[in-house]
């Protein structure tokens, strides 16, 4: 479980996160949703330690993460996998090398064991025969899948996904969503996804935290989000013509 307690963060005296208290549970896909500029990306970057927080604390399974030394932080980070918005694959490495990289850095596996693990992870994300291709030679959806394979290669306890569906068509988005959800349940990972894609919310939202103007405005799941009378949530959920029509039916 990942816990944020009274987390606040400001940039140039502008408070972006205001006393956020939220828990992300193990074995569930936890979604952070909100409009662009609401502070959800900042919250995720604070959770993984890319932004230092101004106030409050962050715990990973009861272990403090926000106010520990660099070396202690590195140890916890080795249990984290992260899928970045653009994939963030290493351009100079091919697909297989990208997936093998965290294993080479932190395990004592032999080369054949690492390649076997990489192939397993790539197969798990439905990618085969792409091992020797470079990131520039594969599509956006494939990049995301390779990034997921890299994120799960070292058996992480925590998986963070920053807008995993951005730039993908609806069909590929569903494939990615289902993949993340399956992996979360299969390996009992604490998964935190930052999204504003309503399809993801309805498909895989085991737990949803709605951030509005830097505050945690609402918490619930994929069922309760459709029936809440919270105005800000409804403005977000029913922002498109399609969702409004579906609500009408």
């Amino acid at each position: 479980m990942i816990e944020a307690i009274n987390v606040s963060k400001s940039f140039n005296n502008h408070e972006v996160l205001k006393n956020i208290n939220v828990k992300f549970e193990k074995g569930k896909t936890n979604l952070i949703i909100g409009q662009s500029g609401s502070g959800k990306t900042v919250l995720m970057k604070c959770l993984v330690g890319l932004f230092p927080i101004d106030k409050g604390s962050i715990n990973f399974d009861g272990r403090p993460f926000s106010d520990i030394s660099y070396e202690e932080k590195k140890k916890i980070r080795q249990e984290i996998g992260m899928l970045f918005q653009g994939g963030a694959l290493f351009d100079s490495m091919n697909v297989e090398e990208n997936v093998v990289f965290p294993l080479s850095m932190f395990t004592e596996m032999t080369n054949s064991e690492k390649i076997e693990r990489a192939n397993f992870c790539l197969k798990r994300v439905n990618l085969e025969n792409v091992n020797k291709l470079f990131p520039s030679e594969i599509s956006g959806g494939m990049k995301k899948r390779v990034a997921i394979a890299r994120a799960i290669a070292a058996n992480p306890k925590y998986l963070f996904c920053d807008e995993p569906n951005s730039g993908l068509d609806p069909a590929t988005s569903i494939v990615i969503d289902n993949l993340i959800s399956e992996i979360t349940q299969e390996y009992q990972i604490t998964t935190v996804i930052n999204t504003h894609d309503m399809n993801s919310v309805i498909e895989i939202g085991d737990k949803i935290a709605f951030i509005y103007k830097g505050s945690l405005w609402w918490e619930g799941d994929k069922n309760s989000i459709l029936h809440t009378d919270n105005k800000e949530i409804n403005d977000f959920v029913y922002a498109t013509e399609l969702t409004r029509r579906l609500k009408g039916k």
Partner: protein
Amino acid sequence: MFNLAKIFNKNMKILSEVGRYLVLMKQVFRKPEKQSIYKKQLLLEMDNLGLDSLGIVAIISIFMGAVVTIQMAFNVDSPLIPLYTIGFATRKSVILEFSPTIVSLILAGKVGSRIASEIGTMRVTEQIDALEIMGINPAAFLILPKIIASIIIYPFLILVSMFLAISGGWLSGSLTGLVATNDYVYGLQYQFKMFDITYALIKTVVFAFLTASVSGYYGYYTSGGALEVGRSSTKAVVNSSIMIILFNLILTQLLLA
């Protein structure tokens, strides 16, 4: 009063940049996570930064040596000055200044822009964040192999440059008939001091460190997009060159005075 405030702010900005550079260097020289991976990176960087530069270093050195010899020959027009002075002056110019400083300045352009744009692009495409999330020290992983590779490979490039520049000088002198081979070779050997080579190599190692670390610094702190990567690359080249010129003066004063 306004100007004073402006000057103060500018100086504070320079101080803050120097501080940030030193903090980054402290991070760069932390103990590596896994030495075998760093060794692999080091070999890769030696190839990328050093061997890839061999062509440009060779071309520049040959022509530089040729021009220095011709200029010397045209300036030595008194019958009282022996012709071997041409070889002597070419050797001195090439070893003391042209090869270590001018070639390092050219490498600051080639290698510096490469380092800054490579690391800068990794920053804006979140590849550095990805390394950090994995629990890897990105500053050390990306910059340390480049610094060590430059320190190892630059002296080799400069020695090659010295040899080729002197050869270029001999070729131009003998082909144009400005200086006979035996005069030129005698001049090369005349009052030869091994310390000149040592001095040049000490300068080269310092310049290699400055180019790789300053360029790494500008790449590492890039923020934004493609435009900022370009800006970082330009800043890296300009500031590396300024540092080379400044340290050239300091080292010359320290080692030769």
